[in-house]
C-alpha cells in the first residue's frame, strides 16, 4: 500500500531524521566541550559582553532536552494525527519543525563552542549571534527540502463538514442568552503541563549552569506558561449584543457585535489536521480557530474579519440563536 510508504516518509522526516541530527549534535558539542575551555560564556548582557559563565556541557544537554521534547510533541503528534486524517499542509509544517529546531541548535550552539576555543579568554567571547544565524539559514534550507520529501499535501475537509442550522424561534420582545464554557480536554492539559515541566527543567539547568541573572531568565517561560494557561478555557456568550468569546482569565477576548454577524453554523473540527494543534490559531483556509479538542464546533461568519471557529458542545443551539438574532435584526432594520 502506498499509505505505509507515505507513513514511513512522514516518520523519517518528523522523527527519525531529527533524532539522528540530535544525536550528532549532542556528540559533536560534547566532544567540543571535552576538548575546549572548562568554563565558557553562556549568557551575554545587552552591551554584548558576557555576564554569565558555566560548564560547556550545558550545550549538549540543552540540545538533547529541547530537541527530544519537540520531536515527541510535534513530530510524534504529526505522525499520530496523519494516521487518522489526511496529511494536510498544517500537518506537514508540524512534521518539518523538529528538523528545523535540531539543525538550528546543533549548528548554533556547536558554532558558539567553536568560537570560544579561538578567543584568548572566555570573558571576551562574542555572543553566538552569527553561529545562530548560520544555523537558522541552514535549518530553513534543510527543513524546506524535507517538505518535498513528504507526500503531497491533501486538502483539509473543513468546507465539506459544515452543517447549516435553522434559527431558533424568538418572539418579538423576547430576550435570549446562550452561555457556555468550553475547556481543554485531559490530553491537552497533559501536553501543556509537559511543556511547562520541560521549559522549567531547561531553565533551571541554564540558570544553575550560569549561576547569574536568575530572575530575568524566568521571564520567557513564565510568559509562555501564562499564554498557554489563558488558552485552556473560554466562555462563549451569545445575546442581543452579539457573540463574545473570552478566555476565563479575561484575555484573549473576541467580541463580534450583532451588526457584524452574518450567520453561524456547526462544523466538525480536526484539531491537528486543520489547525495544527490546540489553542488560539489560524488555519490555512482563513479561519481563526479557538481549538480545545477535535469534534463539534461553532462557526461564526462575520461581515468584517475572519470566520471564527470554536470547539464547543451544543453548538447547534448556539448557531440557532445567532441565526435567530441575525434574522430579527434584519426584520427590525
Amino acid at each position, binding site marked *: 500500500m502506498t499509505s505505509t510508504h507515505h507513513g514511513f516518509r512522514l516518520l523519517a522526516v518528523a522523527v527519525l531524521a531529527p533524532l539522528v541530527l540530535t544525536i550528532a549534535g549532542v556528540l559533536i558539542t560534547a566532544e567540543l566541550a571535552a576538548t575546549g575551555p572548562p568554563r565558557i560564556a553562556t549568557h551575554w548582557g545587552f552591551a554584548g559582553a558576557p555576564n554569565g559563565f558555566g560548564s560547556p556541557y550545558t550545550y549538549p544537554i540543552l540540545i538533547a532536552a529541547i530537541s527530544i521534547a519537540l520531536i515527541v510533541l510535534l513530530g510524534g503528534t504529526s505522525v499520530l494525527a496523519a494516521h487518522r486524517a489526511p496529511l494536510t499542509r498544517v500537518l506537514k509544517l508540524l512534521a518539518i519543525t523538529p528538523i528545523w529546531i535540531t539543525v538550528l541548535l546543533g549548528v548554533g550552539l556547536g558554532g558558539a563552542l567553536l568560537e570560544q576555543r579561538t578567543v584568548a579568554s572566555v570573558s571576551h567571547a562574542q555572543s553566538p549571534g552569527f553561529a545562530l544565524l548560520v544555523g537558522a539559514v541552514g535549518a530553513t534550507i534543510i527543513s524546506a527540502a524535507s517538505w518535498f520529501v513528504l507526500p503531497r499535501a491533501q486538502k483539509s475537509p473543513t468546507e465539506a463538514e459544515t452543517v447549516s442550522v435553522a434559527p431558533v424561534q424568538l418572539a418579538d420582545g423576547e430576550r435570549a442568552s446562550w452561555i457556555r464554557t468550553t475547556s481543554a480536554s485531559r490530553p491537552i492539559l497533559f501536553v501543556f503541563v509537559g511543556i511547562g515541566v520541560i521549559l522549567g527543567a531547561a531553565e533551571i539547568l541554564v540558570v544553575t549552569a550560569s549561576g547569574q541573572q536568575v530572575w530575568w531568565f524566568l521571564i520567557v517561560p513564565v510568559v509562555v506558561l501564562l499564554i498557554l494557561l489563558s488558552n485552556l478555557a473560554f466562555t462563549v*456568550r451569545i445575546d442581543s449584543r452579539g457573540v463574545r468569546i473570552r478566555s476565563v482569565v479575561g484575555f484573549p477576548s473576541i467580541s463580534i457585535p450583532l451588526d457584524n454577524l452574518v450567520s453561524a453554523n456547526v462544523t466538525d473540527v480536526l484539531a491537528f489536521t486543520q489547525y495544527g494543534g490546540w489553542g488560539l490559531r489560524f488555519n490555512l483556509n482563513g479561519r481563526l480557530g479557538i481549538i480545545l479538542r477535535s469534534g463539534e464546533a461553532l462557526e461564526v461568519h462575520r461581515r468584517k474579519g475572519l470566520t471564527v471557529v470554536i470547539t464547543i458542545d451544543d453548538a447547534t443551539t448556539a448557531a440557532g440563536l445567532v441565526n435567530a438574532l441575525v434574522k430579527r435584526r434584519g426584520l427590525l432594520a
Partner: protein
Amino acid sequence: MLIRIDPASSVPMFEQLAASVRFDASRGTLRPGDRLPSARELAESLDVNVHTVLRAYQLLRDEGLVDLRPGRGAVITVRAASFSDLGEAIPRLVSQARAVGVSVSALTAMIRQEYAA
C-alpha cells in the same frame, strides 16, 4: 445553555429563568455537574437585575436542581438526571393532549388537580 425570557409575559422574570433551566435539564442539555453561568454574567447578558437571576438560582436550589456554593457558583445536581425522565414523558403527554384537542390551560388545570389529589 439557552435561557430565554419574555418581559411582556405575565410570569415573573425569575420564574421564566428557572423554567428555562428546568427545560434544559429535562432535555439533557444540562447534565449533573454542569455549571450555570455566574449570576452577574447572565444578568448582564439578559439585561436584568442580578437579584432576579439570584432569585431564580435560589428557587432552583430549593427544588434541589442546583447546588449553590460560594466560589463554585451554581452547579446542576444529580437530580437533573431524574428531570430528564420527565423530559421524555412531557412531550408524549402534550402530543396526546393535542390529539384529543385539550388546550394548554385545560391540561395544566388537569395536572394541578392531579397534584391536589
